[in-house]
């Protein structure tokens, strides 16, 4: 893209000023063909960085899917979230975990710990390692992980 831009600049700068605008438009159109959607994607990124999410959504709503993977990913990420109800409830009582933390945190400073219903399932310096050990012992499901401050 940088090489193409440099070529475009060189071409335009050699022409009389009156023709530059017209030629520049043609070159931009060529660039767009070479890298479809790139400028739009860059524009959407700037809008998102500025917190103008609705504006970014408006821009993307006018774009057909499939122009570029970058634009497709922006469309997917900025689409409205979809919520649905599950016919189950898997929450454990967090109150017991909070009580355990209040009474026992001191002994596990700097470690990750896993609790379930106020019962300690394991502790380790690394969350990844703790997770692996809980998978091996079949205790992972429904456990809650906490990092104790050191």
């Amino acid at each position: 893209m940088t090489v193409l831009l440099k070529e475009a600049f060189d071409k335009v700068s050699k022409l009389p000023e009156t023709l530059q605008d017209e030629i520049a438009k043609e070159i931009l159109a060529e660039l767009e063909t070479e890298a479809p959607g790139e400028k739009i994607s860059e524009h959407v990124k700037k809008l998102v960085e500025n917190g103008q999410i609705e504006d970014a959504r408006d821009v993307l709503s006018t774009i057909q899917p499939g122009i570029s993977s970058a634009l497709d990913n922006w469309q997917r990420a900025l689409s409205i979230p979809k919520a649905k109800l599950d016919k189950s409830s898997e929450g454990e009582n967090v109150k017991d975990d909070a009580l355990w933390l209040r009474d026992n945190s001191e002994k596990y400073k700097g470690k990750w710990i896993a609790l379930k219903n106020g019962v300690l399932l394991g502790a380790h310096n690394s969350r990844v390692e703790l997770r692996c050990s809980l998978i091996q012992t079949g205790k992972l499901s429904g456990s809650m992980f906490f990092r104790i401050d050191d």
Partner: protein
Amino acid sequence: MLWSSGCSLFLVSSKVGHWRLPIAVKCRIGNLEETELALLDTGAEWSVIGGETAKILEDELNFPTESFTMSTRLGRISGSLYRIIIRLLAEENFGYDLTVESSVFVSREWEGPIVLGYRGFLERIRFALDPGVAPGEQIFYFGLAE
């Protein structure tokens, strides 16, 4: 509450690692089996995941947006938006869980807690916080916005 489909206790000023979370709620991220305690932050533009949770989720992260930077309370960080399932957990006999196909900013540079923010998550659910009258009675209600 009529609009609420489920509820659970939330924690106030709970310490998670180096961070004290003013309001912490329970959720599950992606296909992970463990429950996470996340900061509920209506002032956050995006939900944010970083650190070891992002590492564990790596296999589930597909179709990222271009990397961009975002201002946070810990400074500017760069990352990408991903579509990730987040499940708000209701306590047993207190309604049903709510599953949200969410957009989440994932950044290896983020060292803070999991954040549940407005865009891509809270913007399409109804929720309320009941502070209760005694410690331990705080209830987080949630339901579909439709």
